[in-house]
């Protein structure tokens, strides 16, 4: 049971002079329950890639399989797929439209054809999950703060009970506190429901702490696909792609350069602390 991308290539603007190859022969296997960080510079194709995962875009060539079925087969229900692969877009709060928060979150499950009771139950659960205070439920979504709006939008996708949750830059435009809250929220949702999570980001610090696996995109191709530790060992290559390693990893490198005998593979603050303490003993 997994999502498989098989030689996926996607081109924008076919048949015109402005042809852009946004994805170039991408092969990925996304097993159940994994927490994946998808990283790449602006224009590396990561947003295009995630839009393939729920069939919003169809590959120019190649195939995508969900649980063994080609999602672009004629008799495959893409609407069903969209409830299984939940996609939270960049700035998802821009898609809110209902008169109150609760009705907006009901939109997704209602589109799945669920009855009213089930719809409302799911909406309530989802809003609880994202930690929105009860007294906000019947407010117009436009009255909430930026971080709260984003939670509502995420709840709108969670209410469809996806098996794979894809978040496209969920922390863009948030202050550090809002950022930590959203990332913590994603991690806890993943823990509770044991679903697959794909976190798209260009911030290494965002992903280093949480994910099991890092996929790095560059110019439409996957160039690294490994555990965070192993990916972040390629510091120079990442830098030539306009990406960086987590700040603490940079610090460890600087310490080593300054003559300290420390390992440079720490990617979280906790690991860096341990390593430095070990050295000081």
């Amino acid at each position, binding site marked *: 049971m997994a999502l498989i991308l098989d030689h996926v290539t996607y081109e924008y603007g076919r048949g015109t002079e402005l042809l852009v190859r946004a994805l170039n022969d991408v092969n990925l296997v996304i097993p159940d329950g994994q927490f994946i960080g998808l990283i790449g510079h602006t224009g590396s194709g990561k947003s295009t890639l995630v839009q393939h995962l729920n069939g919003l875009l169809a590959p120019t060539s190649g195939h995508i399989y969900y649980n063994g079925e080609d999602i672009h087969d004629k008799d495959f229900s893409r609407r069903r797929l*969209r409830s299984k692969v939940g996609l939270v877009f960049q700035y998802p709060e821009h898609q809110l439209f209902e008169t109150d928060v609760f009705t907006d979150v009901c939109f997704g499950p209602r589109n799945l054809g669920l009855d009213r009771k089930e719809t409302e139950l799911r909406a309530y659960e989802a809003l609880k999950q994202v930690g929105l205070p009860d007294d906000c439920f019947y407010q117009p979504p436009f009255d909430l703060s930026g971080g709260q709006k984003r939670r509502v939008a995420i709840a709108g*996708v969670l209410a469809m009970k996806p098996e794979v949750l894809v978040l496209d830059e969920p922390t863009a435009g948030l202050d550090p506190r809002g950022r930590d809250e959203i990332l913590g929220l994603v991690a806890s949702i993943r823990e509770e429901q044991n679903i697959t999570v794909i976190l798209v980001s260009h911030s290494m610090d965002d992903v280093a702490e949480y994910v099991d696996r890092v996929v790095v995109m560059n110019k439409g191709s996957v160039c690294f696909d490994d555990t965070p530790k192993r990916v972040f060992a390629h510091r120079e290559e990442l830098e030539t792609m306009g990406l960086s390693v987590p700040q603490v990893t940079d610090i460890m490198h600087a310490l080593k350069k300054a003559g300290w005998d420390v390992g440079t593979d720490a990617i979280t603050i906790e690991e860096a602390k341990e390593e430095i303490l070990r050295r000081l003993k």
Partner: protein
Amino acid sequence: MIRDITLGQYYQTDSVVHRLDPRVKLIATLLFICSLFVVNQAAGYVVAVVFLALAIRLSHVPFRFMVRGMRAILFLLVLTFGFNLFLTPGEAVFQVWKLTVTREGITMAVKMAVRLSLLIIGSSVMTLTTTPNNLTDGLERLLKPLQKLRVPVHEIAMMMSIALRFIPILLEETDKIMKAQTARGASFDEGNLLQRAKSMVPLLVPLFISAFRRANDLAMAMEARCYRGGDGRTKMKPLHYEKRDYLTYVVLLAYFAVCIVIGRIMPWGRIF
């Protein structure tokens, strides 16, 4: 999806027509349209077609782009053709069911269709060879005398260029919101008319909100840079006429004179 729609009429290439001053092109289009109504006989339309063909040739824009504009008015074209064909009174030629086709009807229908097509293609030559910004600049300059009558010419031109600038932005936004709602299980092309209209709500509400937000931001940014309307404002690239522009005016006047002469000396009413 929606991004495939080409609304930006401008066709980027380098040609004499592209380099002409936008004012010349605006006036040329206006004169060309007038000329279509001055002449009324085959000879006149031949002159118009030759003139237009020459302009297209000089513009280096492939002809299929001109025809593309025709598609939008095809319905109108067929409608006028039909009405003129069947509803003009006169000498009957033949009859289909209850509809009588007259000699005058055929003449009128053909004439109207030719006029309309030439009109559309003529204006596409202008929009295909002039960037929207240039076009509004030219319009602003041409309408400047109206300022004496307290017509807010600069403001109108500014609104036009902002509106044009926002079209691609809003198209992209629409595409994004559509995708986001599709990801939440919405569909925009199912059900009867009422259901379809209703399914537009999740698209239109966020779109309007975003349009207002953008408008607000833009107004703020303009004010922050001390924009205060047209008074005393100078241009970074002021329009000024070159030799080729004067030459074009001469050619234009000659063309228009020929059209008037043809329209005057040849008998009215009949073509072909």
